[in-house]
């Protein structure tokens, strides 16, 4: 278990975060410049926080009160950099062996040979990084990191330097390699929600140097705690709530003078907002609560669906309609339905 609680101030930026990470892949998600990479550098000992605590299991790496600050070389942390940071003047073999300095020569040779076999780069031992493809470079960087058997693996945007169409294949490769050869804690920094969704078990969401939400990825994506978190993970339908009322069939939220039935009973402190994901809006023919007459204001064509902007008498919202449902939607007169089980409250 990695426990991090650190502060570091800059003239126009303040990093102030606290989180714990367990075994498995934890994603640190946030826009660029929100302090993600800085956090990794503090964990690795490359930057020193102004105050706080970094503890791995029972080993303190940094403790401002006890004046503990373990040097990077003694922390045993694996760090894969955004551009892989392979030494351009060293061969594949020399790069992979870089962290083993001081070990007996026979041991180094054996370990490096094993590792090169694992990443499938036999015959490339004497090549230089510039002669390798992006994917091969990534494998060398990972091998160089894992050969020292670290307890924590830090991955800083590992796919930002990769062509879009290569990405999916590389993601699969990297994750299965890590799952096969590494059993510790992985911290994975990314600004890409889909990437985080595909690769991580848990998510820590960053915004302007602070953690705004963390937890298992399903929970975080299904239930953002506030408007900032919701916007970051793609919720566009956010309505300020005027008041709420508890009734026997559930909660009722008043928005712009209309009533909406909501199954959610967790009401955070005000300012209170109500949200529903564009994917969860339905179109129905019968007349039930939470249905509204609507017109389509704008349509954007995506690969497999349409993003439509919808206007009712009282509000606007964003809906996703699958291409196969499009014709039937236009064919008959339907009403927009906001399913009460998919409406949830969040803080403004």
């Amino acid at each position: 278990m990695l426990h991090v609680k650190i502060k570091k101030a800059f003239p126009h930026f303040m990093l102030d975060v606290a989180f714990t990470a367990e075994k498995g892949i934890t994603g640190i998600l946030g826009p660029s410049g929100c302090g993600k990479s800085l956090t990794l550098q503090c964990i690795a000992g490359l930057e020193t926080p102004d105050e706080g605590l970094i503890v791995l299991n029972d080993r303190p790496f940094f403790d401002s009160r006890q004046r503990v600050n373990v040097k990077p070389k003694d922390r045993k942390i694996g760090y894969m950099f955004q551009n892989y940071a392979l030494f351009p003047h060293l061969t594949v073999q020399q790069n992979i062996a870089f962290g083993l300095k001081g070990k007996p020569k026979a041991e180094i040779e054996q370990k490096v040979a094993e590792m090169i076999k694992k990443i499938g780069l036999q015959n490339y031992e004497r090549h230089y990084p510039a002669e390798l493809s992006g994917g091969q470079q990534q494998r060398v960087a990972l091998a160089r990191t894992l050969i020292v058997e670290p307890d924590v693996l830090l991955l800083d945007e590992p796919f930002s330097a990769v062509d879009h169409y290569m990405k999916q294949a590389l993601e699969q490769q990297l994750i299965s390699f890590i799952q096969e050869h590494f059993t510790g804690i992985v911290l994975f920094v990314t600004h890409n929600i889909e990437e985080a969704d595909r690769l991580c078990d848990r998510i820590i969401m960053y915004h302007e140097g602070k953690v705004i939400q963390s937890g298992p990825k399903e929970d975080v994506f299904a239930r953002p705690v506030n408007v900032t978190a919701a916007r970051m993970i793609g919720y566009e339908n956010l309505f300020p709530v005027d008041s709420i009322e508890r009734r026997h069939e559930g909660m009722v939220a008043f928005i712009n003078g209309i009533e909406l039935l909501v199954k959610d009973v967790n009401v955070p402190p005000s300012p209170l907002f109500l949200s529903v994901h564009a994917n969860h809006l339905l179109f129905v023919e019968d007349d039930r609560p939470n249905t509204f007459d609507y017109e389509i204001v704008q349509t954007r064509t995506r690969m497999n669906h349409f993003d439509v902007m919808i206007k009712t008498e009282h509000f606007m919202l964003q809906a996703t309609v699958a291409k196969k449902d499009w014709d039937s939607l236009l064919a008959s007169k339907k009403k927009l339905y906001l399913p009460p089980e998919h409406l949830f409250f969040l803080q403004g």
Partner: protein
Amino acid sequence: MEPLNLFPFFLSLKVAVAATGLAAVIGIPLAYYLSRSRGKIADFVDTLTTLPVILPPTVLGYYLLVLLGRQSPIGKFVEETFGTTLVFTPLGAVIAAFVVAVPFLIKSARAAFASIDPNLIRAAKVLGRSDWNIFLVVILPLSWRGVASGLMLVFARALGDFGATLMVAGNIPNETLTMPVAIYDALLAGNHRLANALVMIMTVVSVSLLYMMKRVEKRMIRGDGSHAARKD
């Protein structure tokens, strides 16, 4: 016909070699420090090390004369400890050449150090290497062309210094008379044979150095490709 007195040539060679060595020892760490720091102290050091390029050599020589002369604290200390004066000796010529030439090394080496991806240094740290080891194994190998080109520039500049050397070391024949000063003296004395010979030597050495630097820099621009092309 009396034989040419080539003492100035050999003295200049020795002075230039010594000044280059001194520049390497002092200039490279200074360049490294400047490539890593952004503070006010770094700005001050930067200004101070660039000054010799801007100041007229005679002004620079005058300052050195005041700073190192027999009445100055430094001059007194050296004279009492080592029994030799700094000014009007070959040692003075070395110091003058060093001060005039070292900015060129600092500028070139600093640019080379600064162009190294900081993630490479971070990676080496995380992989357990000490700062000194990182300097030797990562930083120098990746910037040696810039450093080498700077050293050649220092050598050429040290070999050809006139003004500062004349002020600090003087022109005592067979003692402190370096080549550029000797050329001037020979011309004044009407010894065209000596002047021509020394001018030829200086020109050949300078052109060869410049050519070598061009070669090194060309490979530097090709960058990482030169590593890939190397066959061991």
